[in-house]
């Protein structure tokens, strides 16, 4: 084991024996996953497998789970503040006020979370140049989604939690988003996403909630099609 491997030994995000129940139905349990900077993780599984529930639990919206979530080695309830500043969650609901313009919507986000680039640049990056001052109720579903996606450009967060980010955007938008996700990972970020699309990202790892079989001996962390999982454990 080399020094560089020991340095990355502390995962950015770690799920320990995580399980979620919904209406007395077990969605998944015993989820042990270690996620490192530079990972893209696609949560797989059929409808109702608990993908959204898992992402909401990790994002800190839902506390209805058992097990532990660790951020940079610290358990989440204690490190929630640091995690909130370092994570970005994009859910099914875009969180966009239709009465406001895209610029005003992002202004609200920026004031709370800070921003890496200007709002106009972020809107231009998602192809909404010229729509800054158009009220959001005049935008199409795909454009609304793009306003929400502009947060990815704006945000300084390392951890992205994206629930169906490809919904309602066109083919060009999908490839741009994929490129953005790849860039985020190259810069040491971590992206967790759910999607029913087949993604073409080379660094993609899958966690399939449906056939998830916990492996307890620690050599593999039970990922469905883990390509380079062993390297992480040295």
């Amino acid at each position, binding site marked *: 084991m080399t020094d560089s491997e020991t340095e990355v030994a502390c995962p950015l995000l770690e799920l320990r024996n995580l399980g979620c129940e919904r209406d007395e139905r077990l969605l998944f349990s015993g989820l042990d996953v270690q996620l490192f900077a530079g990972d893209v993780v696609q949560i797989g599984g059929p409808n109702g497998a608990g993908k959204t529930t898992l992402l*909401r639990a990790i*994002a*800190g*919206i*839902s*506390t*209805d789970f058992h097990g532990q979530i660790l951020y940079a080695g610290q358990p989440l309830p204690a490190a929630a*503040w640091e995690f*909130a*500043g370092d*994570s970005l*969650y994009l*859910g*099914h*609901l*875009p*969180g*966009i*006020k*239709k*009465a*406001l313009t895209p610029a*005003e919507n992002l*202004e*609200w*986000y*920026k*004031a*709370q*979370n*800070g*921003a890496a*680039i*200007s*709002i*106009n*640049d972020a809107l231009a990056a998602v192809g909404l140049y010229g729509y800054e001052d158009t*009220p959001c109720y005049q935008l199409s579903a795909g454009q609304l989604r793009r306003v929400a996606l502009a947060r990815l450009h704006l945000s300084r967060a390392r951890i992205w939690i994206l629930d169906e980010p490809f919904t309602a955007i066109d083919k060009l938008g999908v490839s741009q988003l994929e490129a953005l996700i790849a860039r985020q990972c190259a810069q040491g970020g971590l992206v967790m996403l759910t999607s029913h699309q087949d993604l073409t990202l080379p660094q993609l790892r899958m966690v399939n909630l449906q056939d998830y079989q916990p492996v307890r001996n620690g050599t593999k962390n039970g990922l469905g099609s883990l390509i380079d999982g062993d390297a992480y454990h040295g």
Partner: protein
Amino acid sequence: MGDKVPVAGLLGGFVASFRRDLLIAARHKAELTNPLVFFLIAVTLIPLGVSPEKSVLTLLAPGIVWVMALLATLLSLDGLFRSDYDDGSLEQMLISPQSLYFTVMAKVLVHWLVSGLPVTLLAPVLGLMLSLPVEGYLPLLVSLALGTASMSLIGAVGAALTVSLRKGGLLLSLIVMPLYIPVLIFGASAVQTAVQGGAIGMQLAVLGAFLALAIVLAPIAALGALRISTNG
């Protein structure tokens, strides 16, 4: 222009949410006038339904104005967190690195500015309509200003608890109404006493105490309730 340093510290979320909500309120003018119109209509109908007799109205005026102000506030409560819940802004609020206490506080403050404050300012005019004696105007203004602010804060707890229910309107009224009763008793009593020429320091002090307590506790209860509501 876009490179302004974001507002740092605890008040960042407060300022951002306050400005945003005020902007949204300004764009939904029709919804704003709902509680006011209700207040106006209800108070106007009382002389027609009860009696146009001056002596009767003078006796009833403080209570009627106060009860209608309470109902007008109740009417506007349901929307406090509803649109944020429906469009996902609430989730973003919950996980943003800002103090949720101040974000809730900002929302309640805007709610009061667009519902409680107009009702308070309109009240003396309606008092005139109900032939409220002149001595009652100032106590009515002060007691309503304190009382509607408390009611917005207390109502936020109920609104937060029922936000995830599709038809939470009735439940919201049931939760909030018992908590409004003390505010109503002391508020109406302040005006009544002033009309009869008594000192109203005690009533206003109690209303002020309610408000102080509500400012400290209600946002905490509301943010806890919001977390429960979004948990499902």
